[in-house]
C-alpha cells in the first residue's frame, strides 16, 4: 500500500505541491458518493480526506456542520464510510485519509476501527480532538499500521510543534488560522508568517496547510511555504450549489491544482 509521506515527497520532487481535498462522507448524495470522490481525484486532487459525521463537530464552522448533519440524516456512519473507501480504493492508488471526531471512533471500538481501516485501504486518520496529551490514551498499538496525522495551529509554540512533529506520521496538518473550518483569513500576512515559522520547525514530516483556503489566490499565497494544501469548506460549499455533474466543483479542483503545480 502507498505511503502518504513518500507520495507527497515524490510529488514535491517533481516540483508539485499536493492538493488534498476534504469530503464529508456520503455528502451531498450517498448514492453517488464514490463516483464523486473518483471524479474529484481525476480533476486533480492528490489525496482525499473523508470525514465521517459527528453530531457535535466542535472544530467545524457552519458549512461542515451542515454537511455533517446531512450525512447523519442520510444514515452515514463509520461502517458506511469504510464501505465507500473500499470501493474508491478499487479505482485509485492515491492516499485516502479518514477524518472525524473521537467519540464515534471510541464507540466503534478503536481497535476494530484501526483494523478495519487497514483492511479497507485507508492510509491515515485525522482526529482533531485528540491532541498529543491524549495520544497514547486513544491511539493504541493497532494504529501503528495507519498514519496518525496531528495538527498544529497559530497558538502552538515551537517547542510543541517539535513534539507534534515527532508523534505525527503521514504529514503535519498546519491549521493556518485560529478558528473553525471555513473561516476567512483576517490577516494573510500573519498567517504566512506563522506558516513560515512552522515550516522551518517541522523536520520529520511533510507539512500541509489547511483551514481558510478557499480559492486560487489563497492557494497561491500559502503553497510556496508548505508541501501542499488542504481544501475543505470551499469544496463542500461548492457541492451544495452545484449541478448534477458537479461541474463547478470539479472546475474549482482543477484550478486549485493548476495554481500549485
Amino acid at each position, binding site marked *: 500500500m502507498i505511503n502518504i509521506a513518500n507520495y507527497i515527497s515524490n510529488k514535491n520532487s517533481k516540483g508539485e505541491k499536493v492538493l488534498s481535498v476534504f469530503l464529508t462522507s456520503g455528502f451531498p448524495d450517498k448514492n453517488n458518493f464514490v463516483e464523486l470522490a473518483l471524479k474529484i481525484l481525476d480533476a486533480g486532487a492528490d489525496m482525499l480526506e473523508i470525514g465521517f459525521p459527528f*453530531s457535535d463537530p466542535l472544530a467545524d464552522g457552519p458549512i461542515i456542520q451542515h454537511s455533517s448533519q446531512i450525512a447523519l440524516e442520510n444514515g452515514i456512519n463509520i461502517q458506511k464510510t469504510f464501505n465507500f473507501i473500499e470501493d474508491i480504493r478499487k479505482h485509485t492508488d492515491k492516499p485516502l485519509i479518514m477524518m472525524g471526531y473521537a*467519540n464515534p*471512533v*471510541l*464507540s466503534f471500538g478503536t481497535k476494530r476501527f484501526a483494523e478495519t481501516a487497514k483492511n479497507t485501504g485507508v492510509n491515515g486518520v485525522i482526529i482533531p480532538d485528540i491532541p498529543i496529551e491524549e495520544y497514547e490514551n486513544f491511539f493504541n498499538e493497532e494504529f501503528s499500521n495507519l498514519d496518525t496525522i496531528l495538527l498544529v*495551529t497559530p497558538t502552538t509554540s515551537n517547542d510543541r510543534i517539535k513534539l507534534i512533529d515527532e508523534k505525527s506520521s503521514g504529514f503535519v496538518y498546519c491549521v493556518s488560522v485560529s478558528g473553525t473550518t471555513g473561516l476567512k483569513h483576517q490577516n494573510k500576512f500573519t498567517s504566512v508568517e506563522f506558516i513560515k515559522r512552522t515550516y522551518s520547525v517541522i523536520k520529520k514530516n511533510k507539512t500541509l496547510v489547511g483551514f481558510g483556503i478557499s480559492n486560487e489566490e489563497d492557494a497561491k499565497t500559502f503553497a510556496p511555504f508548505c508541501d501542499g494544501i488542504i481544501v475543505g469548506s470551499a469544496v463542500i460549499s461548492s457541492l451544495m450549489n452545484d449541478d448534477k455533474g458537479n461541474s463547478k466543483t470539479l472546475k474549482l479542483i482543477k484550478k486549485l491544482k493548476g495554481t500549485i503545480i
Partner: protein
Amino acid sequence: MQVLDKYNLPDLKGHFGKYGGKYVPETLITPLKELEEIYFQLSKEKNFLDELENLNKEYTGRPTPLTFAEGLTKYFGGAKIYLKREDLCHTGAHKINNALGQILLAKKLGKTRIIAETGAGQHGVATATVCAKFGLKCFIYMGEVDIERQSLNVFRMKLLGAEVIPVSSGSKTLKDATNEAIRDWVTNVKDTHYIIGSVVGPHPYPMIVREFQSIIGKETKVQIQNAEGRLPNYIVACVGGGSNAIGIFYPFINSNVKLIGVEAAGYGINTNKHCATLTLGREGIFQGMKSYLLQTDEGQVSEVHSISAGLDYPGVGPEHSYFKDEVIADYFSVTDDEAISATELLSKTEGIIPALESAHAIAFLDYLMPKTKNGEIVIVNISGRGDKDLNTIKDKLGY
C-alpha cells in the same frame, strides 16, 4: 461508599482515573495551559484568596445559611433535614461562586472579552453580573429553546449589559450553547476567556470549577458541626454537569457521609426523553472530556430532555463519572413530574421556592427518607431559587 485516605485527583494531565483529560482541538491547548498555570499560581497567593473571600462575603452574601427544614422534617418523619441555601446567593444560585473566581483569573490573564454558555440562564446571569462589576465585555451563548423557557433570565443578562447570542443548532439547548461557546473561544482565543459554568469540559476546568464551588461544602461542614456537633449521614444534590453537587460533596469525600447525586429522568428513564447520564450513559468523549455520555450505538450524542434547563445536558462532569465507578457517590434520577411535586412541597412546607434543578434533589427525599432513622441527618443542597422557573411551574400546576 468508600472512606478515602487521600484523594488527590485529577492527576497532572487532568485525569480522574480514565475520565477527564483534554480532548480538544490543538488551538485550545495553549490557553488551557495558561489558565492552568495562572490558577496554580494564584491559588497559592494570599492576595488572590483574600480578594475572592472578600467578594464572596461582601458581594455574594456568603456564607449562605444552613437552614433546619422543620416543616419538611415533620412531613417525612425520620431524619432531620437541613437545606444549604445557595438560593440566597446574589443572583439566586451557586453559579456566582465560580463566576467570581474565574473573572479574577481572566483579569490576571489580561483577557478583555468573556464568553459563557448557559442553560437555565443562572450561569449566564452570574457571568453577566461579574462582567458588569469588573467592566469586561460579555457574550452569552444560549439555546433558542432555553431562551424561550428562561426568558426572565435573558432579560436579566441584557440588563446587566451582556449580549445574549441565540444558538439554533442541534437541540437548541445547553450542549449546543456549549459547542458554540467553544467555537467562539477557538476563534477569539487571544483576547477571550471562556467561563465554563460547570465541572465539565477539558482540564483544568473541572478542577478549577470544583475548587471555586467547594466553598459550599466547606461552609456546610462547619455549619452542621455548629448545629449538631457532628457530620450528616446523607448529602443530596442535583446533577446536570454537576457543579453544585461536586461543590457540596468534595469536602466530605474523606468522611463517612453518604453522597447522593440526583439526575433528571425527564419523562422517565424508560423513555428516550431524559438526561440521566450516569444512570444510563456510557463512556464517551464530548466537549473536551472523557466522561459518561448519553449517546447512540454509533457514538452520536443523544437528544435529551429535562423540564429543568440546567440539567438538560447529555454529558456530566468527569469527576462524577469517577465517583460513580468508584462508588464514592451514588447516583439516582427523578422525573419532571416528581420535580414539580417537590417544588410544590418545599414551597408549602418551608416557604422556599427552589429552582427546578434543585427540586430534583428534594424529590429524591421521597425515596431516601423512608430509609432514614430518627437521629440521622440529611442535607439537601438548594442550588438555586425558583423565580426563573415560575412560568414553567405555573403551566404544569395549572393554578
